[in-house]
């Protein structure tokens, strides 16, 4: 294949020089990326390969569905909690269990705090080094840095020249030691970095501040869930009990615990408003001419929605995070999404290291099959255990190819924001318009790596505000006399029907997440997850559609082919999570999975 037009509108040309990035760093999990660049250093072919698989599918088979949340939470420790929440919803859907209002508010508080912390950590600790040059920060004038800070964030009290000078001195001592730690072998002379030294120093200072602050946000999850990472959850509600002024209240969620949650919420809102958003906008100002990375974001977007306002209602109207699908670039029509419809979500494996009975067909998660099949293609350079270049005409990834009505879709903050914008969501529209006006760019600028990055920041700000909303809502509910946090009517498996199936979903920080399960005679018979990075990191399908990562890299100009700054910058804008993209499913009925253990 020399040149091929994909059905989703990209011209793939694999004749140019091949560049390999493996490992892709500053992601969760393991991923490999290969591109072909032409003589003008423009990417004309892109390959995204998931390079890990844990095989959780058979592990869940036969287990108690009430334990499932704990297993699946360990799919990922970065988006810790989102899989657990999805799981308890799937079990509650299957068993028709309704949860109390307070449990809904507490679950939302836990999920929203994850959104905020995960986006914050992603921006500073996983993404920033693609935009910010810490070595350049050493040239900054602390007084000018202070002036910059005060102009973009006048309410931020930490802005004196001395403050920035202290950070600069610490950084200087660190660099002079000759041991550069995480900055070692970085691409610090690459012309792709566009910030003046003062912006670099400001961002590095906030990198350190954000590293300190993020741990405090997660204390909300420790209060309700006992620990973070990996707090505890419960089928039927939440495990923590509320006791405000009864006997023994000091042994439950009481006024002091609620005060702690409330004060963390206030500090979180302030941090996002005073540090994250101003930094995001300042950096965007310098990069707004670099609008590569749109990929399929202008044509195919998907979200399941999340954050139910009232308990037990998962219809689109009750979800504060929007639900819908946009295809063919038509923003005037947002399609309805139904996770139970066998025609909508299907997974394909022609280019993935799995085997289906008939690989021309896609399978809905309730009917899925997972049989690992590690086979490299004939044109692979290297060997089975030493891959030098992948053969993308064959199987090349541990990630499956999910499709919505046959379309490759992008999921994540940008998808949610564009869908919300298209639906006329007031808060989202206001935030987007504010950013477009501040940066003086048209709405089409959203469909880019920069747009994806901006959407993530805006979503963090939105989520922080909603934490205050659900805190207030829960207090009002408690005031009205409702302390319930768990419904145990169907806790005992003896109350369950013999054969049921259910689906649960959340909007994880990285995008739309769904779990489908079947329960037979009180045990899990079948469990499958389709995860955000499965959508975004997807390889090609039978028709030749490329996935979101691959599409976003297309037609990007690379300053220095041996330094993958632009590749990392665009891949990171999706916030890849590869442990998540690992497929997990348990076969229906008989065990179809056969793994040859050598």
């Amino acid at each position, binding site marked *: 294949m020399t040149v091929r037009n994909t059905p989703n509108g990209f011209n793939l040309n694999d004749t140019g020089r091949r560049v390999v990035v493996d490992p892709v*760093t500053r992601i969760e999990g393991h991923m490999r990326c290969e591109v072909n660049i032409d003589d003008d250093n423009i990417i004309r072919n892109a390959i995204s390969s998931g390079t890990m698989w844990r095989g*959780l599918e058979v592990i869940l088979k036969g287990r108690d569905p009430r*334990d499932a949340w704990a297993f699946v939470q360990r799919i990922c420790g970065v988006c810790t909690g989102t899989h657990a929440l999805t799981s308890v919803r799937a079990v509650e859907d299957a068993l028709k269990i309704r949860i109390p209002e307070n449990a809904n508010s507490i679950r939302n508080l836990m999920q929203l705090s994850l959104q905020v912390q995960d986006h914050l950590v992603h921006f500073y600790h*996983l993404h920033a080094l693609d935009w910010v040059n810490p070595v350049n920060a050493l040239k900054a004038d602390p007084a000018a840095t202070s002036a910059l800070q005060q102009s973009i964030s006048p309410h931020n009290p930490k802005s004196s020249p001395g403050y920035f000078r202290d950070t600069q001195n610490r950084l200087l001592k660190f660099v002079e030691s000759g041991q550069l730690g995480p900055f070692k072998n970085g691409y610090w002379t690459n012309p792709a970095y566009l910030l003046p030294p003062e912006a670099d120093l400001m961002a590095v200072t906030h990198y350190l501040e954000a590293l300190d602050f993020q741990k405090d946000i997660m204390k909300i999850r420790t*209060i309700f869930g006992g620990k973070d990472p990996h707090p505890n959850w*419960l089928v039927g509600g939440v495990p*923590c009990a509320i006791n405000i002024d009864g006997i023994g209240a000091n042994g439950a969620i009481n006024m002091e615990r609620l005060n702690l949650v409330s004060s963390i919420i206030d500090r979180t809102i302030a941090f996002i408003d005073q540090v994250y958003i101003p930094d995001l906008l300042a950096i965007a100002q310098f990069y707004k001419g670099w609008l590569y990375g749109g990929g399929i974001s202008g044509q195919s977007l998907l979200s399941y929605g999340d954050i139910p306002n009232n308990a037990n209602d998962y219809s689109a109207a009750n979800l504060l995070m929007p639900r819908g699908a946009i295809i063919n670039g038509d923003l005037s029509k947002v399609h309805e999404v139904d996770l139970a419809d066998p025609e909508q979500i299907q997974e394909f494996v022609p280019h993935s290291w799995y085997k289906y009975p008939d690989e021309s067909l896609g399978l809905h998660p309730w009917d899925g099959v997972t049989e690992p099949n590690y086979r490299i293609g004939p044109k692979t350079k290297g060997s089975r255990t030493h891959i030098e270049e992948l053969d993308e005409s064959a199987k090349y990834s541990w990630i499956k190819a999910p499709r919505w009505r046959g379309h490759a879709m992008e999921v994540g903050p940008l998808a949610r924001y564009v869908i919300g914008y298209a639906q006329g969501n007031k808060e989202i529209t206001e935030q987007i318009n504010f950013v477009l006006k501040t940066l003086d760019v048209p709405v089409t600028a959203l469909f880019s790596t920069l747009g994806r990055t901006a959407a993530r920041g805006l979503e963090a700000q939105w989520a922080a505000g909603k934490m205050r909303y659900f805190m207030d809502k829960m207090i009002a509910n408690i005031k009205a006399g409702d302390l319930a946090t768990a419904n145990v009517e169907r806790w005992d498996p003896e109350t369950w029907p013999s054969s049921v199936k259910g689906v649960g979903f959340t909007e994880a920080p990285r995008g739309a997440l769904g779990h489908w399960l079947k329960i037979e005679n009180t045990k899990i018979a079948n469990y499958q997850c389709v995860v955000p990075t499965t959508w975004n990191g997807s390889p090609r399908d039978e028709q030749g559609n490329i996935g979101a990562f691959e599409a976003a890299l297309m037609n990007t100009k690379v300053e220095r082919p041996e330094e993958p700054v632009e590749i990392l910058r665009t891949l990171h804008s999706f916030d890849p999570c590869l442990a998540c993209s690992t497929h997990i499913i348990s076969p229906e009925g008989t065990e179809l999975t056969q793994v040859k253990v050598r």
Partner: protein
Amino acid sequence: MNETFYDVMRRQGITRRSFLKFCSLTAASLGLSPAFAPKIAHAMETKPRIPVLWLHGLECTCCSESFIRSGHPLAKDVILSMLSLDYDDTIMAAAGHNAEAIVDEIVEKYKGNYILAVEGNPPLAEDGMYCIIGGTPFVEQLKYAAESCKAIISWGSCASWGCVQAAKPNPTRATPVHKVPGLADKPIIKVPGCPPIAEVMTAVVAYLLTFDKLPTLDKQGRPQMFYSQRIHDKCYRRPHFDAGQFVEHWDDEAARQGHCLYKMGCKGPTTYNACSTMRWNEGTSFPIQAGHGCIGCSEDGFWDKGSFYERLTDINQFGIEANADAVGGTAAAVVGAGIAAHAGLTALKRAKQSGAEQQ
């Protein structure tokens, strides 16, 4: 934390002039020319931070996330001032070839003098290609880095025991670090937990740097300073266990008063960790305090020890071999009788008093 020799001497009141004289004398005593004095001075003023290669196998990254939750020391201080985190693919700037080159450099330059930290574990099935780094199996990167390291830290239950991917039937043959065939024979510190507590992780690092030796390890290879007592031994709800006061259903009256979670499946009695003393996230809380029983996440094979909601049997209370129901009943009766007696005495006292007042 990481004092140079110069710092130590200054602290002891030795002037810089004397320090420089010391360096000259040292050069002479080593048979070196006077030109070496400034070099010795520089070396003693700038002690290198110990390099760390933090590798990731099959994992979920919760150990890294836990590490950055540390309140004391802060993660930023660990990375900027305590050690040299030269390779960690979660936060490092370099990718691909530039990243792999760092492993080669550290292995060569610091032979025998760097720490290998492992998060996650290698799968051995399918020739190791269930976890690929740089086009080759992770197990090869692990063995290569282990060859010349000073010691290995197995972060979390994945590296220590296998954890979730190794739960039955372990399709990828995920293998904990100490059981990897052909791994160099190096001291291994296991720091189990899913994940381990943040301040436990940074304390293990700080111990190594402060005392310049490995902490005392128990028979399973865990630091006994944090893993020698059970959650149950130090649990603040233990008096409720001893008194037979148990939560019977989620959100019942006993739950709202913070009674013992033994009947809700708590694995505290068989789990070794520091959760009930140090607690989580700078001492904010821990699972039992927030109402859910311990799931035993630092123990080997905890995923396969039955449902998290099945209660442990044969737990001794008051030295009696009995299950919780029997003991609960007995304890309640004993306590009840005690209360009745106490109430009776009080009533008698009051009757006497009022009788006295009436007279």
